[in-house]
């Protein structure tokens, strides 16, 4: 079983460099989302390599779980962070890079030593014998997982559940149901309240539909509900620029603005 078929060789020389490129790209990409994509490529190539090496179940589970679920969650978070969040080059923790480099070198030494021993000292058994007896790859895997490796399997699941529950406990802040109304309660409150209808907009004869223009009641008085609390409490000079630009008296009117006499600011706007 030490011979490697021509199909496997071709697949390896295509997938291997792609996986390597994925790993390198993940490290060197400036953009976090690009980094995640390179990692997804490396995982995908590994999954395909497993399939080539007669472990189809492992390969597809690798794709579904790692590429499909875990990387997708990574991407989900990264996209929320924003598009412009490139890698920061400022070192936050003192000596972080030196420690990381030392750790990386140590891991590499360990891996090379282990893999070297595996290449030299261990003879490959291959999966053909296992895959052709007792229901094939998937059935054998299931059997061994639920007999010989039942305890480690259950321990792993307990660990994962603990991690998930812990994350939820740490991240979930109890806001309490007391302050929040349900949709039904809102409907009832509104229908039973003083005003079931929306707040009045600018009056029928208003010359402008700005929220700053109050609605007028039939007798000409200002409808108090139509006044925006936010605008009322804003200092007058803070909206000076807006008033000027709405009135067309701004410093730099756009070229496409219609030429013509600039209307003076109305009395309503002056009041605000």
């Amino acid at each position, binding site marked *: 079983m030490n011979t490697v078929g021509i199909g496997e060789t071709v697949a390896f020389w295509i997938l291997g460099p792609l996986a390597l490129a994925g790993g390198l790209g993940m490290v060197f990409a400036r*953009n976090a*989302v*690009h980094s995640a*994509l390179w990692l*997804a490529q490396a995982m*995908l190539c590994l999954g395909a390599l497993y399939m080539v090496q007669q472990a*189809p*179940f492992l390969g*597809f*589970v690798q*794709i*579904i779980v790692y*590429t*499909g*679920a875990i990387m*997708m*969650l990574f*991407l*989900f978070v990264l*996209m*929320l962070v924003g*598009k412009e969040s490139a890698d920061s080059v400022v070192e936050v923790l003192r000596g972080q890079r030196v420690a990381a480099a030392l750790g990386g070198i140590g891991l590499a030494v360990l891996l090379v030593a282990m893999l070297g021993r595996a290449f030299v000292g261990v003879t490959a058994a291959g999966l053909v014998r296992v*895959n*052709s007896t007792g229901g*094939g*790859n*998937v059935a054998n895997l299931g059997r061994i997982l639920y007999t010989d490796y039942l305890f480690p399997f259950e321990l792993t699941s307990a660990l994962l559940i603990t991690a998930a529950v812990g994350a939820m406990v740490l991240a979930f802040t109890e806001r309490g149901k007391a302050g929040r109304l349900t949709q*039904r309660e809102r*409907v*009832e409150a509104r*229908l*039973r309240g003083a005003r079931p*209808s929306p707040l009045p907009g600018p009056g029928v004869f208003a010359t402008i539909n700005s929220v700053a223009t109050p609605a007028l009641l039939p007798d000409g008085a200002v409808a108090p509900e139509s006044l925006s609390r936010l605008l009322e409490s804003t200092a007058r000079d803070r909206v000076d620029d807006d008033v000027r630009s709405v009135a067309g008296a701004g410093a730099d009117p756009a070229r496409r603005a219609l030429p013509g006499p600039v209307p003076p600011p109305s009395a309503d706007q002056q009041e605000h």
Partner: protein
Amino acid sequence: MTPTGALLAGNPLWLTVLKVVVIFAFLMVMTLFMVWVERRVVGRMQHRLGPNRVGPFGLLQSLADGLKLAFKEDIKPVLADRWVYLLAPVISTVTAFTAFTVIPLGGQVSIFGEQTVLQVADLPVGVLVVLACSSLGVYGIVLSGWSSGSPYPLLGSLRSAAQVISYEIALGMSIVAVILYSGSLSTADIVAAQSRQWWFVFLLFPSFVVFCVSMVGETNRAPFDLPEAESELVGGFHTEYSSLKFALFLLAEYVNMVTVSAMATTLFLGGWHAPWPLAGGPADRGWWGPLWFIGKLLVFLFVFVWLRGTLPRLRYDQFMTLGWKVLVPGSLVWIVLVSGARALRSAAVTPSEVLVVGGIMLVMLLVVAFLLPQNTPAQREALDRTRGVPTAGSDYPLPPLDLVVPPPPPRRAAVSAAVSGNGDQATRQEDGHGTV
């Protein structure tokens, strides 16, 4: 390797290539056909004709639209991330097409003297191929939304990522019971297992329901089309796409629809086998297979269109509640029931033992039900609050029966006194506004 897989592995390369090309053409034609069907059927449901100008019954309308789409200007937003923007529609389409390769379209036939099966590949993990392809397909949607560099697509793609991950769990769980009964992950074996026993739609109806609901969620179709909710997000993840790239997204959506329908047919409706009176007869083998298969496929596709024409879109939290609080626990309970039933059968338990154990469990359940508190004070309070409010059967509060309409203001009363007869009605209508 499965027997079907062994037969396929012996086939020459040209036969596999031929099958791939035929599958590709089939999916393209199905897409064009489905666009037409959708427009016509939804049109009929809304009392209008739908496209009926190009070709007989408007059949060529979608072809004409597709050609026109290809010649549109290809727009790339300034803020777009160039390569990812280009990659996203390609990922969507490629994964959609790949998933169809493991679907068995028919039984053993002879093509140009070669014995083969109407299926491109039969892996021992065939069902997982479809799941893997759908989980990779999300990348297309998510990346398109992110790379467009604009808020609406980003929101659409975030929704889509959450949606597909949630519903894939329910989808995978609904498949578990099928795998338990067929004893294999290979699609050809699942079809063969259904021809030996009942179709799984009858044996495992709850699984079928969960699969159907989550396949609609998985394909982003109405009423679960939140990632492209046009009333909220313009076009969702493909807002910034145009021309052929947009066409690829459209293609991927319809191919995904065909694939999940084919999957439902394979898993639950007996695949390419003929329905009951003809099962096992001469019309249940060889080239008859694709006929039955496409027939069942079209039923599912019609239901997709029917859903779109009938149901309004769900709100996002309702949608997530349905997925996580109904479908996932429901399928978990169902899986426990199914495996319990199978364990009982293989352990050769006598009916009296089943009855005794079942009786004890029933008694325990009743005791627990009696011990539970009736309802909490908050619930009782809420109940009391609703009891005083008259409702019209729909829980919607009505105005009180002793409602007194306030009298019209004196000015209006004077006007209505002056204007008699015809003007009376108009004045009464006006009163409604005047009292506010």
